[in-house]
């Protein structure tokens, strides 16, 4: 734990005086910009976010006020070749996720060959028999993936979690960039930063590419939101806006004769592609939860008939489930034929006797997690736990080993961050976004960097005091001009 032995992405291991040579310009920028000016810019960015309504609701917070996520003005920067290698790993992983979903809802070859225990899939509520046998248009399931990564060295990235349902956070990536261009234009002269505002174009092209019927004009694409009371509503309307497509609520859609229509003033319009931000459970009351008032009755029949593409596909939860995560290296190898380029964080499945023995012998070094837990509940962080806590977990593990996994405590990388007294290293994670369409897999050159603002903390969750940073991906000298982020490219 702690920041002492962690790799700092800007300063390397040398500290503020001796930054990694590629980032000398950033260190100089920080040194030359007065501290009060950094704070002022940061406040200006946060004021804009508040105005736009990029807020999140803290669950269980009784005053129910929506908060904004704190923004840190010092960007995180990926070198071009670091990014190229990382992208290759992401593409391989997302291709495997799609192949896995295709297989698991079809032939289930991976179960027949015993690579993943069958009961882990079949007994998992995230495996949705209701959509078994459906092949989505163009065979694509996970059109938008967010892969959560942590880093421990220049080229050492580890996958912490896959998100193949409806990964959120892309509006932060885009708004953070806009704020940086407005507040720190000089940085975009010092660095050739890849533009991220093409994300909306990429997403719209991805959506169009998976329209069921390629004939006859432009496919009609929409964003389906549960409504304005949803905490991610800003992102829903933002995405529809920037893509130039309709934002619809469930009541705007009807299904007739296995075809989805949008009801407009001018009459019915056939809908080809739906980016739905409604969970599987609530999508179709005839197929999933009958008490859902958010759903579109018949939408699954239209989807099964091949008349509409749903982004992402229903049933994807089985691919990013915690219980499946530990098998991802085997899953990637099974479908890609080669070793996973991006490793998982080493995970001991306590259901396996050898793993259990190791974990029990190293309880003071590892992190123990409940397979079905989330938000830090049912978790032991060995290095900071008391003796009593460790002994409690020892008993729990011995009693029900199948309910637990364990992982080593990683020295997460840090990035210099504005604090009260100047700049200090703070731990970060990273969520890049990967788009898959009929035209292939693309990694958006940027992403969402979350930063743990508390000294030494490894918890980056926004609900627990985490913030965000812009994430620069540097381009080579010969990159085409339109790929480079310039000051004039972004319209407010």
């Amino acid at each position: 734990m702690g920041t002492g032995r962690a790799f700092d992405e800007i300063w390397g291991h040398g500290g503020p005086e001796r930054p990694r040579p590629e980032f000398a310009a950033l260190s100089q920028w920080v040194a030359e910009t007065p501290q009060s000016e950094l704070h002022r810019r940061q406040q200006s960015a946060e004021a804009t976010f508040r105005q736009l309504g990029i807020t999140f609701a803290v669950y269980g917070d009784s005053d129910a006020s929506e908060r904004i996520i704190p923004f840190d003005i010092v960007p995180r920067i990926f070198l071009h070749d670091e990014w190229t290698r990382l992208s290759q790993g992401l593409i391989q992983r997302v291709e495997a996720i799609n192949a896995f979903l295709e297989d698991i809802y079809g032939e289930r070859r991976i179960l027949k060959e015993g690579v993943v225990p069958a009961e882990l899939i079949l007994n998992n509520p995230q495996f949705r028999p209701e959509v078994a046998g459906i092949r989505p248009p163009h065979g694509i399931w996970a059109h938008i993936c967010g892969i959560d990564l942590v880093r421990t060295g220049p080229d050492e990235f580890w996958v912490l979690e896959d998100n193949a349902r409806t990964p959120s956070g892309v509006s932060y990536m885009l708004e953070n960039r806009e704020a940086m261009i407005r507040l720190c234009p000089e940085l975009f002269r010092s660095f050739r930063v890849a533009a991220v505002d093409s994300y909306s174009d990429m997403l719209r092209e991805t959506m169009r590419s998976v329209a069921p019927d390629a004939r006859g004009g432009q496919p009609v694409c929409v964003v389906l939101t549960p409504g304005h009371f949803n905490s991610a509503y800003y992102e829903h309307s933002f995405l529809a806006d920037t893509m130039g497509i309709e934002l619809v609520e469930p009541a705007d859609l009807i299904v007739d004769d296995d075809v989805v229509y949008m009801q407009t003033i001018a009459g019915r319009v056939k809908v080809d592609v739906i980016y739905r931000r409604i969970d599987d459970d609530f999508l179709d009351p005839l197929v999933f939860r009958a008490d859902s008032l958010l759903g579109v009755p018949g939408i699954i029949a239209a989807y099964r008939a091949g008349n509409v593409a749903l982004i992402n596909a229903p049933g994807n939860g089985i691919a990013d489930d915690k219980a499946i995560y530990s098998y991802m290296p085997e899953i990637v190898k099974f479908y890609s034929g080669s070793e996973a380029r991006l490793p998982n964080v080493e995970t001991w499945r306590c259901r396996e006797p050898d793993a259990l023995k190791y974990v029990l012998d190293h309880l003071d070094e590892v992190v123990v997690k409940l397979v079905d837990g989330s938000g830090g509940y049912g978790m032991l962080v060995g290095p900071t736990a008391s003796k009593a806590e460790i002994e409690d977990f020892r008993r729990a593990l011995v009693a029900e080993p199948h309910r637990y996994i364990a992982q080593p405590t990683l020295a997460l990388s840090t990035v210099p961050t504005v604090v009260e007294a100047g700049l200090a290293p703070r731990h970060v994670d990273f969520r890049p976004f990967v788009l898959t369409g009929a035209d292939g897999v693309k990694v958006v050159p940027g992403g969402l960097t979350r930063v743990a603002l508390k000294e030494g903390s490894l918890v980056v969750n926004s609900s627990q005091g985490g913030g965000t940073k812009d994430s620069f991906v540097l381009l080579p000298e010969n990159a085409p001009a339109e790929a480079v982020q310039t000051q004039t490219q972004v319209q407010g």
Partner: protein
Amino acid sequence: MRIAVEHLTQYRFSEPQSRLVQMLRLTPGDTLDQTVLTWRVDIDCDVRLRDTVDGFGNKVTMLYAEGPIEDIAIIVAGQVLTTESNGVVRGSHEPLPEGLFLRTTPRTLSNEALTAFARDSFGNGTDTLDQLHRWNAALAKRFPGVPDLPDGGLSAAEVFAAPEPSSRDLAHIYIAGARALDVPARYVSGYRQHEGGESAPHGWAEAWVDGLGWVGFDPSAGISPDEGYVRVAVGLDAPGAATIAGSRLGQGKEEMAVDLHVDRLGSDA
């Protein structure tokens, strides 16, 4: 046995509805012991129908109707030829592995009392088929003469303690007990020809026996389904195999009426 089914379902709405979307699981499929000779699903008003299958392999008809709709009748008529198979289901279309049917659903939730009763009923033997027959007989004895009733929405654990479960509740209890003892089990909806006549589609259970496959058990009759049974749909529980799942756009209440005749046409099987 040649079985004729006439099954009328009528919905009346207190206010006209502007749209209806329904998912009908009202069409049986063929197995080695069940041949569908003729089968029609007719609607008494202007609708669009689309045939498909669901994830469990059941035949599904999607119904789309535009309002104003004050009432609608769904009329099923057909004939099926069955042969006796001692409850063993042979040659059915099975897109999902039996292991799926070990998961519980809100409706097939067991509790200690139910599981304990199932364990006692299973007995100490090691023959799964025999254990499943014992479980069936024990439930039939404990809950004699249960009626076919519309869905009450309770879990297996709840109806196990209820004074008057329906045949569908009893099937849920059967399924919950079997799954609790690691035997895959599922719900079947269909028709049953018997002396007393029928007031609603019937529900029973099927459980997995290695080497035999799916075997039917009807705890409301204490038997395995004979040639008087017509299998229509399977699911994890009754809602998952629902004969009609519907959604309507409009105010007011709905009333449902069912008229069902399941008749034996002779012994030409």
